C-alpha cells in the first residue's frame, strides 16, 4: 500500500501561491528527497501533510486513510513523525525528558529504556540531564531527530535535519536514518545538501514556485534543465 499519496494539493497565503497543485506518492521503504530553492514551497508542503495548514484543495492520504485537513496530533498518531526547519525543542525540559515526551502517546512503559538507547545511539548521553535550551545547534538537531526515533512512526518527514550540523553528528544522523530504513521505515527528506540527497535518496522531487518541476533518480535530476534553472537561474539572453 502506498504510504503517502498527495493529490493536487494547493495552498495560498494571501495572493501568494505557496503550493500550487502538487501531486506525488511515496511507496513503503522509500527515501524520497524534496529539493528546491528557498521559498519553493517545500516546508509548506510538509505543513500541509502534517496538518499544520489545511490545504485550499486536493487530498492527502496516509496508508490509504484520508488525512486532509486533520489536526496535527491525529495525523501524528496515525503513524507520521516530523522534524522542523528550525528545531522545535521543549527548552525548559531536559534532553531525557524531551525524548520521553515523544513517547507520551505511545509505549510509555518502555520509554525510559528506549530513551537510554537513543541517548547512546546519538551520543548525547553526556547532556541527558541538561536543559534542551542549553544545547548547541547541532545537538538540538540530534535531539529533535532522537524524538523521531522515540515516536516509532512508519513515515518520517525530515526538514533539513542536518543543516548546520557538525560532520560527525551528521554521520550519526545518517547512520540512524539508514538503520531505520533497513527496519522498513519510509522517509521524505527536505534537503539543500545535494551530497546527502545523492547518498540516501532513491528518488528526488524538485519544487519551484510551489510546483513540482522534476521527479526521478538523483542522477537524472542533476541533469534536468528545470533543476539547473531553479538552482542556478536561466542563462542570460542577449
Amino acid at each position: 500500500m502506498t504510504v503517502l499519496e498527495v493529490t493536487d494539493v494547493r495552498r495560498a497565503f494571501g495572493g501568494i501561491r505557496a503550493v500550487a497543485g502538487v501531486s506525488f506518492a511515496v511507496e513503503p521503504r522509500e527515501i524520497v528527497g524534496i529539493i528546491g530553492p528557498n521559498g519553493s514551497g517545500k516546508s509548506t508542503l510538509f505543513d500541509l501533510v502534517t496538518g499544520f495548514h489545511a490545504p485550499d484543495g486536493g487530498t492527502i492520504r496516509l496508508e490509504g486513510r484520508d488525512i486532509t485537513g486533520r489536526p496535527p496530533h491525529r495525523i501524528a498518531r496515525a503513524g507520521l513523525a516530523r522534524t522542523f526547519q528550525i528545531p522545535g525543542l521543549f527548552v525548559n525540559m531536559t534532553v531525557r525528558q524531551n525524548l520521553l515526551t515523544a513517547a507520551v502517546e505511545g509505549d510509555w512503559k518502555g520509554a525510559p529504556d528506549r530513551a537510554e538507547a537513543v541517548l547512546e545511539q546519538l551520543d548525547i548521553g553526556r547532556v541527558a540531564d541538561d536543559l534542551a535550551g542549553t544545547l548547541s545547534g547541532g545537538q538540538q538537531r540530534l535531539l529533535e531527530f532522537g524524538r523521531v526515533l522515540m515516536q516509532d512512526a512508519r513515515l518520517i518527514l525530515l526538514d533539513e535535519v542536518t543543516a548546520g550540523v557538525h560532520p560527525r553528528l551528521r554521520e550519526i544522523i545518517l547512520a540512524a536514518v539508514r538503520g531505520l530504513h533497513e527496519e522498513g521505515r519510509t522517509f521524505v527528506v527536505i534537503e539543500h545538501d545535494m551530497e546527502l540527497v545523492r547518498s540516501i535518496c532513491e528518488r528526488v522531487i524538485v519544487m519551484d514556485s510551489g510546483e513540482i518541476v522534476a521527479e526521478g533518480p538523483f542522477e537524472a535530476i542533476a541533469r534536468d534543465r528545470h533543476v539547473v534553472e531553479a538552482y542556478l537561474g536561466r542563462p542570460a539572453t542577449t
Partner: protein
Amino acid sequence: MSAPEGAAGRAVLDRLSTSLALKALLAVAAAIVVLTVPAWAGDYWTRILTGVCMWAGLALAWNIIGGYAGYISFGHAAFFGIGAYATALLMQPERHWSFFLTLPVGAAAAAAVAAVVGWPTLKLRGAYFAIATWAMAEALLQLATVVDFTGGSSGLTIPVFASSAFFYYAMLLAAVLSYAISYLLLERSRFGYKVKAARDDEATARSMGIDTTRVKIQAFVLSAVIPAVFGGINAYWITFINPRSVLGAEVTDQMVVMALVGGLGHAWGPALGAAALYGVNRQFLAWFGDTTSYIAMVGVLVALVVLFLPDGLVSLSPRARRMRLVRRLIPRPRSGTGRR
C-alpha cells in the same frame, strides 16, 4: 573484588545509609512538629500557619496553569470565590448541608466553569489570556454583587465552628494534597510531560500526537478545582464572605506573586513563596497596623525577582533547574508550525 575495594564499598554504603537515616529522622521530626502545631503554637501562630497552608496550596494550584502550562491566569479568584460561595450557600440554616459535602460541590462547579471558560480562552496567549481570565473573575464579582441569593454586596454569614485546630488541619491536608497532585501529575506522570510540552512548544507537541487543546483545558480545570476547595474551607473559617473578599483581584494577585517569587514551574517553589510572603504580610500588619507597605514591597520584590532571580527563591538552591519561565511569559506570535 579486592579487600581494599570491598572496604571502600562498605564505607560508601555506610555513609549512604547514615545519610538516609538522618533524612528519615529529620522528616519524622518535621512531621511531628507540623502535626502538633495547635498543641504548642498557641492560637495566633496556629492561625498564621493556617493562612500559610492556604496560600501555599493556592499558589501551587495557580502554578499548574501559570508555571507548568505557561498561561498566566488573572482570574483564579473566580474559582476561590465559587468554592467559598458554594460552601456558604449550602451551609445556610435553611439548607443545612454538611461542610464536607459542600467542598466537592464547589470543586465541581469550579471545574465546570474552568472547562467552559478555558475552551475558548486557552486558544489565546500571553496578555490576551490574562485579560480574558481577569474579565471572567470581574464578571463573577459583579454578578455576585447584584444577585440576591449571594447576599449581594452585604455577603453571607456562615455558622461558626470555632476550632483553630480543625481549620489548621483542614488547610494542611488540602495543601499537602495540592502538592501531591502537583508533584505526581505534573512531575511524574505522562500528563505532566504533555502539559510542559504544550507550554514550551505547542506546534512540536502537536506534531508528536499531543492534543494540546485538551491537555491545556485539563490543566486549567485541575488548577481551578484546588482553589475552590480552599475557598470553601476559608469561607467556613472566616465565617463571613462578600464578593470583594473572595472574588476580588487581590486573591489572584497573591497567588501570582507567591508563585513568581517562590519559583514558577517548580513543584514546591510556589509554596515557599507563599510561606515567605504571607509571613512578611502578617509581620507588616503587626508592625504598621495595615499592609500598604507590604503591597509596595511586593511590587519591588516582583521586579527584583524578574530581573535578578528569574527562577524565584528555589533557585537559591544549587540543585534547582534554571528554567527562567518568568522571562517567557509573553510568547512570540505563531502561525502554522510557528516557523514560517
